[in-house]
Protein backbone atom coordinates (compact mmCIF):
# COMPACT_ATOMS: atom_id res chain seq x y z
CA UNK A 1 0.00 0.00 0.00
CA UNK A 2 2.14 2.86 -1.20
CA UNK A 3 -0.13 5.82 -0.95
CA UNK A 4 2.36 8.26 0.42
CA UNK A 5 1.56 11.62 -1.01
CA UNK A 6 3.58 14.67 -0.24
CA UNK A 7 1.84 16.88 2.29
CA UNK A 8 0.03 19.67 0.62
CA UNK A 9 0.38 22.10 3.46
CA UNK A 10 3.88 23.51 3.18
CA UNK A 11 4.47 24.78 6.69
CA UNK A 12 4.23 23.13 10.05
CA UNK A 13 4.61 25.07 13.23
CA UNK A 14 8.14 24.77 14.41
CA UNK A 15 8.04 24.37 18.10
CA UNK A 16 10.50 22.42 20.17
CA UNK A 17 12.51 20.17 17.89
CA UNK A 18 13.37 22.25 14.89
CA UNK A 19 11.45 20.80 12.00
CA UNK A 20 12.23 22.00 8.53
CA UNK A 21 9.14 23.47 6.98
CA UNK A 22 7.67 21.54 4.11
CA UNK A 23 9.17 18.24 5.17
CA UNK A 24 8.19 15.76 2.53
CA UNK A 25 10.03 12.51 2.08
CA UNK A 26 12.04 10.65 4.65
CA UNK A 27 15.64 11.03 3.64
CA UNK A 28 17.84 10.34 6.62
CA UNK A 29 17.40 9.18 10.14
CA UNK A 30 18.14 12.49 11.74
CA UNK A 31 16.15 14.40 14.33
CA UNK A 32 16.04 17.32 11.92
CA UNK A 33 13.65 15.25 9.88
CA UNK A 34 10.84 14.34 12.24
CA UNK A 35 8.95 11.07 11.90
CA UNK A 36 5.66 12.70 12.81
CA UNK A 37 4.40 16.23 12.50
CA UNK A 38 1.26 17.38 14.27
CA UNK A 39 -0.16 20.70 13.22
CA UNK A 40 -3.01 22.43 15.02
CA UNK A 41 -4.51 19.11 16.09
CA UNK A 42 -7.81 19.37 17.93
CA UNK A 43 -9.85 16.38 19.05
CA UNK A 44 -13.50 16.21 19.93
CA UNK A 45 -15.65 13.57 21.58
CA UNK A 46 -19.07 14.66 20.40
CA UNK A 47 -19.34 18.27 21.53
CA UNK A 48 -16.48 18.04 24.02
CA UNK A 49 -13.10 19.24 22.88
CA UNK A 50 -10.45 17.06 24.51
CA UNK A 51 -7.39 18.45 22.73
CA UNK A 52 -6.88 22.00 21.52
CA UNK A 53 -4.58 23.03 18.66
CA UNK A 54 -1.55 20.91 19.38
CA UNK A 55 1.48 21.31 17.15
CA UNK A 56 4.42 18.98 17.62
CA UNK A 57 7.34 17.48 15.80
CA UNK A 58 8.23 13.97 16.90
CA UNK A 59 11.92 13.37 16.22
CA UNK A 60 13.07 10.17 14.64
CA UNK A 61 14.83 7.49 16.71
CA UNK A 62 14.17 9.30 19.96
CA UNK A 63 11.81 8.81 22.87
CA UNK A 64 9.29 11.61 23.09
CA UNK A 65 7.28 11.72 26.30
CA UNK A 66 3.87 13.32 26.59
CA UNK A 67 3.33 14.29 30.22
CA UNK A 68 0.61 16.14 32.04
CA UNK A 69 -2.21 15.71 34.55
CA UNK A 70 -4.98 13.13 34.10
CA UNK A 71 -7.55 14.10 31.53
CA UNK A 72 -5.33 16.52 29.65
CA UNK A 73 -5.77 14.63 26.40
CA UNK A 74 -2.36 12.92 26.20
CA UNK A 75 -3.84 9.52 25.36
CA UNK A 76 -6.38 11.00 22.97
CA UNK A 77 -3.58 12.73 21.12
CA UNK A 78 -1.46 9.57 21.04
CA UNK A 79 -4.35 7.44 19.80
CA UNK A 80 -5.06 9.92 17.03
CA UNK A 81 -1.67 9.17 15.51
CA UNK A 82 -2.55 5.59 14.55
CA UNK A 83 -6.25 6.39 14.36
CA UNK A 84 -7.29 4.13 17.21
CA UNK A 85 -9.90 6.76 18.00
CA UNK A 86 -11.72 5.74 14.83
CA UNK A 87 -13.22 3.03 17.04
CA UNK A 88 -14.74 5.61 19.38
CA UNK A 89 -18.22 6.77 18.33
CA UNK A 90 -18.45 10.53 18.12
CA UNK A 91 -14.71 11.12 17.82
CA UNK A 92 -13.57 13.88 15.44
CA UNK A 93 -10.19 15.39 14.71
CA UNK A 94 -9.18 18.65 13.11
CA UNK A 95 -5.76 19.76 12.02
CA UNK A 96 -3.09 17.64 10.44
CA UNK A 97 -1.01 14.68 11.52
CA UNK A 98 1.65 13.85 8.97
CA UNK A 99 3.50 10.56 9.18
CA UNK A 100 6.51 10.46 6.86
CA UNK A 101 4.93 13.18 4.81
CA UNK A 102 1.49 11.60 4.48
CA UNK A 103 -1.60 12.78 6.27
CA UNK A 104 -2.80 9.97 8.49
CA UNK A 105 -6.40 11.16 8.40
CA UNK A 106 -6.65 11.67 4.68
CA UNK A 107 -9.36 9.72 2.93
CA UNK A 108 -6.81 7.98 0.74
CA UNK A 109 -4.76 6.78 3.71
CA UNK A 110 -5.05 3.06 4.34
CA UNK A 111 -5.58 2.79 8.07
CA UNK A 112 -4.49 -0.86 8.10
CA UNK A 113 -1.17 0.05 6.51
CA UNK A 114 -0.81 3.01 8.87
CA UNK A 115 -1.26 0.81 11.94
CA UNK A 116 1.28 -1.66 10.63
CA UNK A 117 3.82 1.13 10.41
CA UNK A 118 2.80 2.83 13.65
CA UNK A 119 2.53 0.17 16.33
CA UNK A 120 1.03 0.57 19.76
CA UNK A 121 1.52 -0.71 23.30
CA UNK A 122 -1.36 -0.18 25.69
CA UNK A 123 -1.77 0.85 29.29
CA UNK A 124 -2.92 -2.55 30.45
CA UNK A 125 -0.98 -5.48 28.98
CA UNK A 126 -3.39 -7.08 26.51
CA UNK A 127 -1.89 -10.32 25.23
CA UNK A 128 -4.30 -12.37 23.17
CA UNK A 129 -5.60 -15.57 24.79
CA UNK A 130 -3.13 -17.52 22.68
CA UNK A 131 0.31 -18.98 23.23
CA UNK A 132 3.35 -16.76 23.72
CA UNK A 133 4.55 -17.74 20.26
CA UNK A 134 1.20 -17.03 18.58
CA UNK A 135 0.96 -13.65 20.28
CA UNK A 136 4.19 -12.55 18.66
CA UNK A 137 3.35 -14.26 15.37
CA UNK A 138 -0.09 -12.63 15.21
CA UNK A 139 0.88 -9.62 13.12
CA UNK A 140 3.12 -11.72 10.90
CA UNK A 141 0.28 -14.09 10.13
CA UNK A 142 -1.94 -11.13 9.29
CA UNK A 143 0.70 -10.09 6.78
CA UNK A 144 0.47 -13.56 5.28
CA UNK A 145 3.99 -14.57 6.30
CA UNK A 146 4.45 -18.31 6.21
CA UNK A 147 8.20 -18.80 6.18
CA UNK A 148 10.68 -17.57 8.72
CA UNK A 149 8.07 -16.94 11.39
CA UNK A 150 10.08 -18.88 13.98
CA UNK A 151 13.15 -16.72 13.42
CA UNK A 152 11.17 -13.48 13.46
CA UNK A 153 9.39 -14.45 16.67
CA UNK A 154 12.71 -15.23 18.35
CA UNK A 155 14.24 -12.01 17.09
CA UNK A 156 11.29 -9.96 18.35
CA UNK A 157 11.30 -11.65 21.74
CA UNK A 158 15.04 -11.01 22.03
CA UNK A 159 14.54 -7.38 21.04
CA UNK A 160 11.88 -7.10 23.74
CA UNK A 161 14.29 -8.61 26.30
CA UNK A 162 11.94 -11.50 26.94
CA UNK A 163 13.51 -14.36 25.03
CA UNK A 164 15.57 -15.84 27.86
CA UNK A 165 12.54 -15.95 30.14
CA UNK A 166 10.16 -17.62 27.70
CA UNK A 167 12.28 -19.60 25.24
CA UNK A 168 11.39 -22.91 26.91
CA UNK A 169 7.68 -22.26 27.15
CA UNK A 170 6.67 -20.62 23.88
CA UNK A 171 3.57 -22.79 23.65
CA UNK A 172 2.21 -21.66 27.01
CA UNK A 173 -0.53 -19.03 27.16
CA UNK A 174 0.60 -15.42 27.02
CA UNK A 175 -1.73 -14.74 29.93
CA UNK A 176 0.32 -17.08 32.15
CA UNK A 177 3.18 -14.55 32.24
CA UNK A 178 3.62 -11.89 34.92
CA UNK A 179 2.38 -8.35 34.24
CA UNK A 180 5.81 -7.05 33.29
CA UNK A 181 6.47 -10.04 31.05
CA UNK A 182 3.06 -9.62 29.43
CA UNK A 183 3.87 -6.01 28.62
CA UNK A 184 7.21 -7.00 27.09
CA UNK A 185 5.32 -9.67 25.15
CA UNK A 186 3.05 -6.92 23.83
CA UNK A 187 6.13 -4.93 22.84
CA UNK A 188 7.54 -8.00 21.08
CA UNK A 189 4.19 -8.40 19.34
CA UNK A 190 4.30 -4.79 18.20
CA UNK A 191 7.86 -4.91 16.89
CA UNK A 192 7.44 -8.27 15.16
CA UNK A 193 5.95 -6.55 12.14
CA UNK A 194 8.76 -3.96 12.07
CA UNK A 195 6.82 -0.75 12.51
CA UNK A 196 8.59 2.59 12.20
CA UNK A 197 7.00 4.21 15.22
CA UNK A 198 5.87 2.66 18.51
CA UNK A 199 3.23 4.50 20.50
CA UNK A 200 3.13 3.62 24.19
CA UNK A 201 0.12 4.61 26.23
CA UNK A 202 1.22 4.59 29.88
CA UNK A 203 2.86 1.20 29.34
CA UNK A 204 4.10 0.90 32.92
CA UNK A 205 1.11 2.12 34.88
CA UNK A 206 0.05 -1.45 35.70
CA UNK A 207 3.58 -2.65 36.48
CA UNK A 208 5.81 -2.87 39.53
CA UNK A 209 8.97 -0.71 39.76
CA UNK A 210 11.33 -3.47 38.61
CA UNK A 211 9.28 -4.26 35.52
CA UNK A 212 8.96 -0.53 34.89
CA UNK A 213 12.73 -0.13 34.82
CA UNK A 214 13.05 -3.09 32.47
CA UNK A 215 10.61 -1.47 30.05
CA UNK A 216 12.46 1.85 30.28
CA UNK A 217 15.80 0.18 29.55
CA UNK A 218 14.16 -1.59 26.66
CA UNK A 219 12.89 1.70 25.26
CA UNK A 220 16.41 3.11 25.30
CA UNK A 221 17.58 0.13 23.27
CA UNK A 222 14.66 0.17 20.86
CA UNK A 223 15.24 3.75 19.69
CA UNK A 224 18.17 2.52 17.62
CA UNK A 225 15.54 1.12 15.26
CA UNK A 226 12.30 2.82 16.22
CA UNK A 227 10.79 6.16 17.03
CA UNK A 228 8.95 6.01 20.34
CA UNK A 229 6.19 8.23 21.65
CA UNK A 230 5.20 7.50 25.22
CA UNK A 231 2.35 8.88 27.27
CA UNK A 232 3.11 8.81 30.97
CA UNK A 233 1.82 10.44 34.10
CA UNK A 234 5.01 9.41 35.83
CA UNK A 235 7.40 12.37 35.67
CA UNK A 236 10.37 10.35 36.88
CA UNK A 237 9.77 7.99 33.98
CA UNK A 238 9.72 10.86 31.49
CA UNK A 239 12.90 12.30 33.05
CA UNK A 240 14.68 8.93 33.01
CA UNK A 241 13.62 7.48 29.71
CA UNK A 242 12.80 10.25 27.24
CA UNK A 243 14.85 12.56 25.03
CA UNK A 244 12.10 15.06 24.41
CA UNK A 245 9.25 16.01 26.67
CA UNK A 246 5.95 17.63 25.81
CA UNK A 247 3.98 19.01 28.74
CA UNK A 248 0.23 19.32 28.29
CA UNK A 249 -2.36 20.59 30.67
CA UNK A 250 -6.07 21.40 30.66
CA UNK A 251 -7.51 24.79 29.93
CA UNK A 252 -10.60 26.19 31.64
CA UNK A 253 -12.73 24.40 29.05
CA UNK A 254 -11.00 21.11 30.04
CA UNK A 255 -9.41 20.86 26.62
CA UNK A 256 -5.78 19.76 26.73
CA UNK A 257 -3.15 21.99 25.17
CA UNK A 258 0.63 22.08 24.99
CA UNK A 259 2.25 24.32 27.57
CA UNK A 260 5.86 23.63 26.77
CA UNK A 261 7.99 21.20 24.86
CA UNK A 262 11.67 20.64 24.42
CA UNK A 263 14.59 18.48 25.39
CA UNK A 264 13.78 16.50 28.49
CA UNK A 265 16.73 17.89 30.43
CA UNK A 266 15.63 21.44 29.80
CA UNK A 267 11.98 20.81 30.62
CA UNK A 268 12.91 19.29 33.96
CA UNK A 269 15.75 21.60 34.98
CA UNK A 270 15.01 24.90 33.30
CA UNK A 271 11.35 25.09 32.33
CA UNK A 272 10.31 28.34 30.69
CA UNK A 273 6.71 28.29 31.87
CA UNK A 274 5.53 28.58 35.45
CA UNK A 275 2.91 25.83 34.86
CA UNK A 276 5.63 23.46 33.72
CA UNK A 277 7.83 24.33 36.66
CA UNK A 278 4.95 23.69 39.05
CA UNK A 279 4.12 20.38 37.43
CA UNK A 280 7.61 18.91 37.15
CA UNK A 281 8.42 19.94 40.71
CA UNK A 282 5.30 18.15 41.88
CA UNK A 283 3.46 21.23 43.09
CA UNK A 284 0.51 20.53 40.87
CA UNK A 285 -1.08 17.59 39.09
Amino acid at each position, binding site marked *: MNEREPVTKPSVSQIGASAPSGATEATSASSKNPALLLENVSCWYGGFRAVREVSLAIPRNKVTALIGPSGCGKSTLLRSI*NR*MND*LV*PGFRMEGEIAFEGTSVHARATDV*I*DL*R*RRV*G*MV*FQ*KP*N*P*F*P*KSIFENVA*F*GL*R*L*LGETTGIDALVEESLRAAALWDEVKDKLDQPG*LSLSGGQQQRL*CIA*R*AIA*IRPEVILMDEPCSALDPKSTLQIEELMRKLIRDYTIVIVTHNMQQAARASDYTVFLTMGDDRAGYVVEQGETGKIFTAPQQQLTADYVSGRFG
Partner: protein
Amino acid sequence: MAGVSTVHRPDSAATTRRGEGLIEFLLRASAAVGIVTTVGIITVLVVEALFFFVEVPPVDFFTGTRWSASILPYAFGVIPLVTSTLLIAFIALVLAVPLGVLAAVWMSEFASQRVRLIIKPILEILAGIPTIVYGFFAITVITPLLKATILPDLGTFSALSAGIVVGILVLPLVASLTEDALRAVPRGLREGSYALGATRWETVRRVLLPAALSGIAAAVILAMSRAVGETMAVVLAAGTNPQLTLNPTESVQTMTAFIVQISLGDTPTESIQFKALFAVGATLFAITFTLNLISAWLVARYRNVYE
Protein backbone atom coordinates in the same frame (compact mmCIF):
# COMPACT_ATOMS: atom_id res chain seq x y z
CA MET B 1 -29.61 -7.68 67.19
CA ALA B 2 -31.34 -4.41 67.91
CA GLY B 3 -31.22 -4.97 71.67
CA VAL B 4 -27.49 -4.34 71.97
CA SER B 5 -27.75 -0.93 70.44
CA THR B 6 -27.04 1.82 72.94
CA VAL B 7 -28.11 4.54 70.60
CA HIS B 8 -31.52 5.97 71.40
CA ARG B 9 -33.94 5.21 68.62
CA PRO B 10 -37.28 6.85 68.16
CA ASP B 11 -40.31 4.54 68.21
CA SER B 12 -40.59 4.59 64.45
CA ALA B 13 -37.27 2.76 64.21
CA ALA B 14 -38.76 -0.32 65.84
CA THR B 15 -41.67 -0.23 63.41
CA THR B 16 -39.25 0.02 60.51
CA ARG B 17 -37.38 -3.03 61.78
CA ARG B 18 -40.61 -5.02 62.06
CA GLY B 19 -41.45 -3.99 58.48
CA GLU B 20 -37.97 -5.09 57.47
CA GLY B 21 -38.57 -8.52 59.02
CA LEU B 22 -41.86 -8.89 57.17
CA ILE B 23 -40.25 -8.03 53.85
CA GLU B 24 -37.45 -10.49 54.51
CA PHE B 25 -40.03 -13.17 55.29
CA LEU B 26 -41.90 -12.46 52.05
CA LEU B 27 -38.67 -12.61 50.06
CA ARG B 28 -37.73 -15.91 51.67
CA ALA B 29 -41.20 -17.28 51.00
CA SER B 30 -41.04 -16.27 47.33
CA ALA B 31 -37.67 -17.96 46.92
CA ALA B 32 -38.99 -21.03 48.74
CA VAL B 33 -41.91 -21.39 46.30
CA GLY B 34 -39.47 -21.85 43.44
CA ILE B 35 -37.32 -24.34 45.30
CA VAL B 36 -40.21 -26.36 46.73
CA THR B 37 -41.88 -26.57 43.32
CA THR B 38 -38.68 -27.77 41.67
CA VAL B 39 -38.08 -30.39 44.34
CA GLY B 40 -41.73 -31.44 44.07
CA ILE B 41 -41.56 -31.86 40.30
CA ILE B 42 -38.37 -33.89 40.48
CA THR B 43 -39.82 -36.09 43.24
CA VAL B 44 -43.02 -36.79 41.30
CA LEU B 45 -41.05 -37.54 38.13
CA VAL B 46 -38.71 -39.93 39.89
CA VAL B 47 -41.34 -41.69 42.00
CA GLU B 48 -43.76 -42.19 39.12
CA ALA B 49 -40.92 -43.30 36.87
CA LEU B 50 -40.00 -45.88 39.52
CA PHE B 51 -43.54 -47.32 39.32
CA PHE B 52 -42.99 -47.64 35.59
CA PHE B 53 -39.66 -49.38 36.06
CA VAL B 54 -41.36 -51.97 38.31
CA GLU B 55 -43.28 -53.12 35.24
CA VAL B 56 -40.70 -52.46 32.52
CA PRO B 57 -37.07 -53.22 33.39
CA PRO B 58 -34.81 -50.15 32.98
CA VAL B 59 -32.55 -52.14 30.65
CA ASP B 60 -35.46 -52.72 28.25
CA PHE B 61 -36.44 -49.08 28.50
CA PHE B 62 -33.01 -47.58 27.88
CA THR B 63 -31.80 -50.06 25.26
CA GLY B 64 -35.02 -51.02 23.49
CA THR B 65 -35.28 -49.92 19.88
CA ARG B 66 -39.04 -50.24 19.49
CA TRP B 67 -41.59 -47.89 20.99
CA SER B 68 -45.24 -48.76 20.75
CA ALA B 69 -47.36 -47.31 23.50
CA SER B 70 -50.74 -47.44 21.79
CA ILE B 71 -50.63 -50.40 19.45
CA LEU B 72 -50.28 -53.97 20.66
CA PRO B 73 -47.85 -55.55 21.29
CA TYR B 74 -46.67 -52.74 23.52
CA ALA B 75 -42.98 -51.95 23.52
CA PHE B 76 -41.23 -49.37 25.62
CA GLY B 77 -37.74 -48.98 24.21
CA VAL B 78 -36.99 -45.27 24.48
CA ILE B 79 -34.24 -45.16 21.84
CA PRO B 80 -36.54 -44.20 18.92
CA LEU B 81 -37.90 -41.27 20.93
CA VAL B 82 -34.41 -40.13 21.99
CA THR B 83 -33.03 -40.56 18.49
CA SER B 84 -35.76 -38.52 16.84
CA THR B 85 -35.44 -35.86 19.52
CA LEU B 86 -31.71 -35.59 18.89
CA LEU B 87 -32.21 -35.74 15.11
CA ILE B 88 -34.51 -32.73 15.21
CA ALA B 89 -32.20 -30.90 17.62
CA PHE B 90 -29.26 -31.62 15.33
CA ILE B 91 -31.07 -30.25 12.26
CA ALA B 92 -32.07 -27.21 14.29
CA LEU B 93 -28.49 -26.54 15.41
CA VAL B 94 -27.06 -27.02 11.91
CA LEU B 95 -29.32 -24.16 10.92
CA ALA B 96 -29.26 -21.98 14.01
CA VAL B 97 -25.59 -22.06 15.02
CA PRO B 98 -23.96 -20.66 11.87
CA LEU B 99 -26.75 -18.14 11.29
CA GLY B 100 -26.94 -17.15 14.95
CA VAL B 101 -23.18 -16.72 15.32
CA LEU B 102 -22.94 -14.68 12.11
CA ALA B 103 -25.87 -12.52 13.18
CA ALA B 104 -24.19 -11.96 16.55
CA VAL B 105 -20.86 -11.05 14.93
CA TRP B 106 -22.64 -8.59 12.70
CA MET B 107 -24.58 -7.06 15.58
CA SER B 108 -21.63 -6.77 17.91
CA GLU B 109 -18.85 -5.77 15.51
CA PHE B 110 -20.31 -4.34 12.33
CA ALA B 111 -23.72 -2.82 13.00
CA SER B 112 -23.92 0.75 14.20
CA GLN B 113 -25.22 1.46 17.68
CA ARG B 114 -28.50 2.68 16.23
CA VAL B 115 -29.13 -0.42 14.12
CA ARG B 116 -28.23 -2.66 17.05
CA LEU B 117 -30.77 -0.92 19.25
CA ILE B 118 -33.45 -1.76 16.69
CA ILE B 119 -32.38 -5.30 15.79
CA LYS B 120 -31.80 -6.71 19.26
CA PRO B 121 -35.37 -6.09 20.52
CA ILE B 122 -36.73 -7.58 17.29
CA LEU B 123 -34.72 -10.72 17.96
CA GLU B 124 -36.11 -10.82 21.46
CA ILE B 125 -39.66 -10.48 20.15
CA LEU B 126 -38.95 -13.42 17.85
CA ALA B 127 -38.01 -15.39 20.95
CA GLY B 128 -41.34 -14.48 22.54
CA ILE B 129 -43.62 -15.88 19.84
CA PRO B 130 -45.61 -18.86 21.21
CA THR B 131 -44.00 -22.03 19.92
CA ILE B 132 -47.28 -23.46 18.66
CA VAL B 133 -47.23 -20.61 16.13
CA TYR B 134 -43.89 -21.89 14.93
CA GLY B 135 -45.49 -25.34 14.58
CA PHE B 136 -48.20 -23.88 12.41
CA PHE B 137 -45.59 -22.05 10.42
CA ALA B 138 -43.84 -25.39 9.80
CA ILE B 139 -46.88 -27.21 8.42
CA THR B 140 -48.35 -24.31 6.50
CA VAL B 141 -45.17 -22.71 5.11
CA ILE B 142 -42.00 -24.75 5.53
CA THR B 143 -43.32 -28.17 4.54
CA PRO B 144 -45.20 -26.89 1.43
CA LEU B 145 -42.13 -24.88 0.49
CA LEU B 146 -39.89 -27.93 0.78
CA LYS B 147 -42.40 -29.96 -1.23
CA ALA B 148 -42.59 -27.34 -3.94
CA THR B 149 -38.84 -27.05 -4.28
CA ILE B 150 -36.45 -29.82 -3.35
CA LEU B 151 -38.50 -32.63 -1.78
CA PRO B 152 -41.73 -33.27 -3.73
CA ASP B 153 -42.38 -36.53 -1.85
CA LEU B 154 -42.23 -35.03 1.62
CA GLY B 155 -45.15 -35.95 3.86
CA THR B 156 -47.15 -33.54 5.97
CA PHE B 157 -45.07 -34.37 9.01
CA SER B 158 -41.31 -34.70 8.92
CA ALA B 159 -38.27 -34.40 11.17
CA LEU B 160 -36.75 -32.05 8.61
CA SER B 161 -39.58 -29.57 8.75
CA ALA B 162 -39.60 -29.77 12.55
CA GLY B 163 -35.82 -29.33 12.70
CA ILE B 164 -35.93 -26.26 10.49
CA VAL B 165 -38.65 -24.61 12.51
CA VAL B 166 -36.94 -25.39 15.81
CA GLY B 167 -33.78 -23.94 14.28
CA ILE B 168 -35.62 -20.70 13.55
CA LEU B 169 -37.00 -20.84 17.06
CA VAL B 170 -33.63 -21.14 18.81
CA LEU B 171 -31.79 -18.78 16.45
CA PRO B 172 -32.54 -15.67 18.55
CA LEU B 173 -31.22 -17.48 21.61
CA VAL B 174 -27.95 -18.38 19.89
CA ALA B 175 -27.58 -14.89 18.42
CA SER B 176 -28.35 -13.10 21.65
CA LEU B 177 -26.07 -15.20 23.87
CA THR B 178 -23.25 -15.18 21.32
CA GLU B 179 -23.49 -11.41 21.07
CA ASP B 180 -23.23 -11.20 24.86
CA ALA B 181 -20.14 -13.41 24.73
CA LEU B 182 -18.53 -11.30 22.02
CA ARG B 183 -19.24 -8.06 23.81
CA ALA B 184 -17.77 -9.48 27.00
CA VAL B 185 -14.38 -9.83 25.28
CA PRO B 186 -12.27 -7.03 26.80
CA ARG B 187 -11.88 -3.93 24.67
CA GLY B 188 -8.13 -4.22 25.06
CA LEU B 189 -8.06 -7.34 22.88
CA ARG B 190 -9.91 -5.60 20.08
CA GLU B 191 -7.59 -2.63 20.30
CA GLY B 192 -4.52 -4.88 20.39
CA SER B 193 -5.66 -6.55 17.22
CA TYR B 194 -6.59 -3.37 15.38
CA ALA B 195 -3.31 -1.76 16.45
CA LEU B 196 -1.44 -4.55 14.66
CA GLY B 197 -3.22 -3.70 11.43
CA ALA B 198 -5.94 -6.33 11.59
CA THR B 199 -9.16 -5.65 9.71
CA ARG B 200 -12.51 -6.03 11.43
CA TRP B 201 -13.06 -9.48 10.02
CA GLU B 202 -9.52 -10.59 10.93
CA THR B 203 -10.13 -9.32 14.44
CA VAL B 204 -13.39 -11.25 14.63
CA ARG B 205 -11.92 -14.44 13.27
CA ARG B 206 -8.51 -14.48 14.95
CA VAL B 207 -9.22 -12.80 18.27
CA LEU B 208 -12.87 -12.37 19.18
CA LEU B 209 -14.34 -15.72 18.18
CA PRO B 210 -11.52 -17.71 19.84
CA ALA B 211 -11.74 -15.53 22.95
CA ALA B 212 -15.52 -15.91 23.13
CA LEU B 213 -15.46 -19.59 22.22
CA SER B 214 -16.55 -21.01 25.56
CA GLY B 215 -19.36 -18.46 25.77
CA ILE B 216 -20.48 -19.41 22.29
CA ALA B 217 -20.26 -23.10 23.19
CA ALA B 218 -22.46 -22.38 26.20
CA ALA B 219 -24.97 -20.66 23.91
CA VAL B 220 -24.99 -23.64 21.55
CA ILE B 221 -25.54 -26.12 24.36
CA LEU B 222 -28.33 -24.02 25.81
CA ALA B 223 -29.89 -23.87 22.35
CA MET B 224 -29.59 -27.66 22.12
CA SER B 225 -31.26 -28.02 25.48
CA ARG B 226 -34.04 -25.77 24.26
CA ALA B 227 -34.38 -27.75 21.03
CA VAL B 228 -34.49 -31.07 22.88
CA GLY B 229 -37.18 -29.81 25.23
CA GLU B 230 -39.21 -28.03 22.56
CA THR B 231 -42.77 -29.41 22.46
CA MET B 232 -45.58 -27.79 20.55
CA ALA B 233 -43.69 -26.87 17.39
CA VAL B 234 -42.36 -30.41 17.20
CA VAL B 235 -45.69 -32.13 17.86
CA LEU B 236 -47.24 -30.19 15.02
CA ALA B 237 -44.39 -30.48 12.56
CA ALA B 238 -42.88 -33.91 13.18
CA GLY B 239 -46.01 -35.90 13.93
CA THR B 240 -46.50 -38.79 16.33
CA ASN B 241 -45.02 -41.75 14.59
CA PRO B 242 -42.50 -43.40 16.90
CA GLN B 243 -39.92 -45.01 14.70
CA LEU B 244 -36.19 -45.46 14.81
CA THR B 245 -34.83 -43.60 11.82
CA LEU B 246 -32.22 -41.05 10.91
CA ASN B 247 -34.06 -40.13 7.71
CA PRO B 248 -35.15 -36.51 8.17
CA THR B 249 -37.98 -36.81 5.67
CA GLU B 250 -39.82 -39.33 7.86
CA SER B 251 -42.45 -38.51 10.41
CA VAL B 252 -41.12 -39.23 13.89
CA GLN B 253 -42.20 -38.88 17.50
CA THR B 254 -39.99 -37.07 19.98
CA MET B 255 -40.00 -37.53 23.74
CA THR B 256 -42.02 -34.35 24.20
CA ALA B 257 -44.48 -35.36 21.48
CA PHE B 258 -45.13 -38.65 23.25
CA ILE B 259 -45.78 -36.83 26.50
CA VAL B 260 -48.27 -34.54 24.76
CA GLN B 261 -50.00 -37.50 23.11
CA ILE B 262 -50.52 -39.31 26.40
CA SER B 263 -51.38 -36.23 28.44
CA LEU B 264 -54.01 -35.06 25.99
CA GLY B 265 -55.64 -38.43 25.34
CA ASP B 266 -58.00 -40.37 27.58
CA THR B 267 -55.26 -42.62 28.89
CA PRO B 268 -56.20 -44.00 32.35
CA THR B 269 -53.84 -42.83 35.05
CA GLU B 270 -53.20 -46.40 36.21
CA SER B 271 -52.18 -47.62 32.78
CA ILE B 272 -48.65 -48.47 31.77
CA GLN B 273 -48.72 -45.73 29.12
CA PHE B 274 -49.44 -43.11 31.74
CA LYS B 275 -46.55 -44.35 33.86
CA ALA B 276 -44.31 -44.38 30.78
CA LEU B 277 -45.00 -40.70 30.47
CA PHE B 278 -43.09 -40.07 33.69
CA ALA B 279 -40.18 -42.30 32.70
CA VAL B 280 -39.84 -40.40 29.43
CA GLY B 281 -40.27 -37.10 31.25
CA ALA B 282 -37.54 -38.01 33.74
CA THR B 283 -35.21 -39.00 30.89
CA LEU B 284 -35.89 -35.73 29.10
CA PHE B 285 -35.31 -33.81 32.30
CA ALA B 286 -32.00 -35.60 32.87
CA ILE B 287 -30.84 -34.71 29.35
CA THR B 288 -31.76 -31.03 29.47
CA PHE B 289 -30.53 -30.67 33.04
CA THR B 290 -27.15 -32.10 32.06
CA LEU B 291 -26.94 -29.79 29.05
CA ASN B 292 -27.78 -26.78 31.20
CA LEU B 293 -25.13 -27.78 33.73
CA ILE B 294 -22.51 -28.04 30.98
CA SER B 295 -23.56 -24.66 29.67
CA ALA B 296 -23.36 -23.03 33.10
CA TRP B 297 -19.96 -24.59 33.68
CA LEU B 298 -18.67 -23.24 30.35
CA VAL B 299 -19.95 -19.76 31.13
CA ALA B 300 -18.32 -19.80 34.56
CA ARG B 301 -15.02 -21.02 33.15
CA TYR B 302 -15.09 -18.38 30.46
CA ARG B 303 -15.69 -15.59 32.95
CA ASN B 304 -12.62 -16.68 34.89
CA VAL B 305 -10.34 -16.14 31.93
CA TYR B 306 -10.37 -12.35 32.08
CA GLU B 307 -11.47 -11.39 35.56
